[in-house]
């Protein structure tokens, strides 16, 4: 009897805590959706449940004569996808070499990568800025993409190497016996087995440029070249509060697809990270 009672108390307390946390999580998210539906412009007049909800801000954002939102969206997608493709290619090459070959400089290379992944590459932002100026890559998407790809290599190489180490080497050795060349072993034997970690690296390198603010802000000058992060920040920062509802609408439009993508692949994230994390 008392056992049953204590179980009831335990569960009730658990549910209360969970309910409180759920409320704290949901509230800001609902609030921004509510703000985006307010017909007014400013932060001050916006309500979570507007009296007369309207889609006027969404219409405004899609009207390319008044707003650059669609351009920013397109820029962000373009930059993210190219970064993802280039990163996955170079990361799988380097990770494969570090995992499968023993060559002079391997140890130092791994150590260098380890240290580099600890220093965010925007710590050297002065250098990146000056270098971009010098090479004429300032205010171009190519420059930004190169910085993203280079920055993604150290960490993701370690991540993928950790996973590749778990794929038995006997597989490539027997393939080598059968006369398969280096490229063939790489493309037809190891890479197909590494699909889960490739998915993780792809998602990481796709999402990282979307969330990056500082590099894009330093390198991009022209409003038409902005990414979403920079563009949305400008929208709120220019006159704080006065365009808040527009910002809210813009946020909802980018947050929803990313959240869906994320939730779909969330399991891979966890397994990829724990596999790579505990091993490598």
């Amino acid at each position, binding site marked *: 009897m008392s056992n049953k009672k204590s179980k009831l108390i335990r569960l009730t307390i658990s549910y209360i805590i*969970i309910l409180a*946390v*759920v409320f*704290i*999580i949901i509230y*800001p*998210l609902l*609030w*921004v959706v509510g703000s985006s539906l307010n017909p007014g412009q400013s*932060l001050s007049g916006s309500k979570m449940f507007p009296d007369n909800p309207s889609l006027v801000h969404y219409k405004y954002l899609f009207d390319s004569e008044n707003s650059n939102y669609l351009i920013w969206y397109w820029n962000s997608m373009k930059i993210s996808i190219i970064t993802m493709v280039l990163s996955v290619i*170079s990361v799988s*090459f*380097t990770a494969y*070499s570090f995992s499968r070959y*023993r*060559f002079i400089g*391997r140890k130092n*290379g*791994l150590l260098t990568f*380890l240290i*580099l992944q*600890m*220093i*965010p*590459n*925007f*710590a*050297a*932002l*002065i250098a990146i*800025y*000056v270098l971009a100026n010098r090479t004429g890559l300032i205010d171009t998407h190519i420059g930004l993409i*190169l*910085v993203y*790809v*280079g*920055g993604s*290599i150290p960490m993701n*190489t370690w991540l993928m190497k950790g996973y590749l180490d778990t794929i038995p080497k006997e597989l490539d050795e027997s393939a080598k016996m059968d006369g398969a060349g280096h490229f063939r072993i790489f493309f037809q034997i190891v890479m197909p087995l590494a699909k889960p970690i490739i998915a993780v690296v792809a998602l990481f390198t796709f*999402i990282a440029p979307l*969330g990056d*603010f*500082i590099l894009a802000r330093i390198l991009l000058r022209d409003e038409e070249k902005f990414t979403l992060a920079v563009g*949305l920040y400008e929208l*709120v920062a220019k006159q*704080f*509060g006065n365009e808040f509802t527009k910002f809210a609408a813009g946020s909802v439009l980018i*947050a929803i697809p*990313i*959240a869906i993508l*994320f*939730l779909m692949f*969330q399991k891979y*994230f*966890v397994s990829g990270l*724990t596999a790579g*994390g*505990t*091993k*490598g």
Partner: protein
Amino acid sequence: MDNLQTTTNHKRNALLLSIIPGLGQFYNKQLLKGLIFLIFSSSFGFVFFEMIGEGFWGIVTLGEIPKLDHSVFLLIDGIIAIIITIMGLAIYAFNLYDAHQNGKRRDLGIAVNSVRKQYHNLIDNGFPYLMITPGFFLLIFVVIFPILFVLLLAFTNYDLYHSPPNNLVDWIGFQNFVDIFRLDIWRTTFFAVLAWTIVWTFGATTLQVALGIFLAILVNQKDLKGKAIIRTIMILPWAVPAFITILIFSGMFNETFGVINRTILPFLGMEGIPWMTNEMWTRLALIMIQTWLGFPFIFAMTTGVLQSIPDELYEAATVDGASIMQKFFSITLPLVIFATAPILITQYTFNFNNFNVIFLFNGGGPAIPGQNAGGTDILISWIYRLTMTSAQYGKAAAVTMILSIIVISVALWQFKRTKSFQEEDMM
């Protein structure tokens, strides 16, 4: 010892001849290889000779005539010259090594490899290098190069008053570091920022880790219903891009218009709080926001670990008469900590450099009299401020170096301790 056994000394001859790249290979009768070395190195020298000379002149003097010599560009060209020189020296060293090795083979009476065999050797041994090259090249230019640049910049007086093209930048040795620790305003600011960075890193990270682990264990209770939906909601803050949520919070915490001061606090019967103008409240808000942003990641990790703990462990403990608390502290917690330890530590380094939340929430503010950083600036956002608003490039570079040294030593210390690194066969 080799000399005693062999009558010939091809080894030495080849090495000496190879001072001019390729000749040693000719001597070893490897004509094609020698030709490649000769052509490659002479064209390398031909193309880069002038550039390297100018580069070294530039990096030593940083320019002599204002308006004509651009010190910063000279510094960049100098670093590029150094990188190219190192690459050239590596090729040259390889040339000497190759000639010496093949000479040794001949001394010992082994035939040198035929062109065909050399080709196969090249493919086999060179394959990993071939694969690493594209990534490594990029890394040199967008990661290593900037780091070298900042390293050097920390020893110059590059700031608003010494900025090209109108003025020259000069080498000033350790003056920037001395200033940071000696001049009152810099010293006060540096230690204030450092102290807050440390409090921030430990406060925010520990809170998010603790909350994540706690909630994961709470939700993982067997008899709790609705696990799937609860878990999905718990992960939401991780799924929404952080820059968006931070900006949303910055709106919610707005002192006059924000929903927290206008609706929530009055509802609880409290007065409005100066979230954006009082540094203590801003700090509190930042730690709460980072906890909100960061706990789902730990939650997801821990949930993954919990699901992999076999039930038998708990059943055996129950048979032995262990209480819930005992089970938690001797089974659950050690297993969770063990499996997630490497990730937990990266969380600390992440927050140490968490620029986004600091900058987007309140721009590092509020301003504080008597120091040149905002009240919530951490090292990385202070560097940004020094660079972008006050143009103190030299000082910013010096602070960057201090920051890097901290991060690197923590990282090395941590990875030396983790098992995975010790197990790694590092050749």
